[in-house]
């Protein structure tokens, strides 16, 4: 029911905008033309090019990276190898950081140490492979490379600090 309402709202916005565009085009309404030509059309062109590529990548990662298998390799005894693996797991994920908490809980449940989990959470935000095309496309390769190279040590250290504190205080991840 709620989902239907949301979709109805989206279609309402789309049709209202189409009517607005048509009106602006016919009557030559200047602010309307600016919104459509400068803002919307620019977005639209770029999205139509980049998004299909992104969805294919996300789909492939979904198929190629089975969660249960990954967890086997990042337990307490995994050392550096485990750290590298949780980083890669973080990198491959798209979406906002709060989407990573369910994964974090699952990792915790299966015996992943807190430092590895917090490093995973940091990694999710440093590089997201599915959106690299966006960052390079809009901000340039130099920016992407510098941001990653500088963010990397800072946020991994942050993951270590949080993980150690978490362990020392014997905090627990909670099931929602």
């Amino acid at each position, binding site marked *: 029911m709620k989902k239907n309402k*949301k*979709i109805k709202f*989206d*279609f309402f*916005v*789309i049709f209202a*905008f189409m009517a607005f565009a048509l009106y602006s085009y016919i009557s030559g309404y200047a*602010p309307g033309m*600016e*919104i*459509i030509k400068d*803002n*919307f059309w*620019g*977005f*639209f062109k*770029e*999205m139509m090019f*980049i*998004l*299909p590529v*992104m*969805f294919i990548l996300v*789909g492939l990662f979904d198929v190629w990276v089975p969660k249960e298998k990954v967890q086997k390799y990042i337990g307490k005894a995994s050392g550096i190898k485990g750290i590298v693996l949780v980083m890669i797991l973080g990198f491959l994920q*798209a979406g*906002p*950081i*709060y989407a990573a*908490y*369910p994964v*974090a*809980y699952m990792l915790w449940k299966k015996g992943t140490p807190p430092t590895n989990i*917090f490093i995973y*959470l*940091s990694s*999710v*935000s440093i590089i997201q492979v599915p*959106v690299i095309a*966006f*960052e390079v*496309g*809009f*901000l340039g390769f130099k*920016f992407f490379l*510098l*941001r990653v190279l*500088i*963010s990397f040590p*800072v*946020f991994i250290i*942050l993951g270590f*600090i*949080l993980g150690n*504190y*978490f362990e020392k205080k014997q*905090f*627990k*991840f*909670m099931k*929602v």
Partner: protein
Amino acid sequence: MMFLKIMPVLLSVMIMVSIVLYFVSEKNLMKYLGNDAGLGAYIFAAAIGAIAIIPSFISYPLAGVLVKAGVSYGVISVFINTLKMVGILTIPIEAKFLGYKISILRNILALIGALVVGGLMAFIYSIT
């Protein structure tokens, strides 16, 4: 199929962002984020990034527009990193998994981390 499912949401978000961008004048945004704003630009970018929830397919184009308008790369990196790492509005979600103490601590540390990265970025851009 997933692509088609997400299309209505995507289009309506793009439409709304197009309209909001028309009203948020570049001049105003530049006043707070531009080079003249100095240190304040970093604080302002961090505040927007920490509060806002913007998906990547909108935040990167927006950052691209800001760079073209003259916002420094250091400030942009603060915006991008806080957007990803810090979420004041999503702390309640995070707290359900980690508890409030750790969630707040993580957000504060991430905010500081993002500002450190921004400062280093600005430094490197200034010498290259």
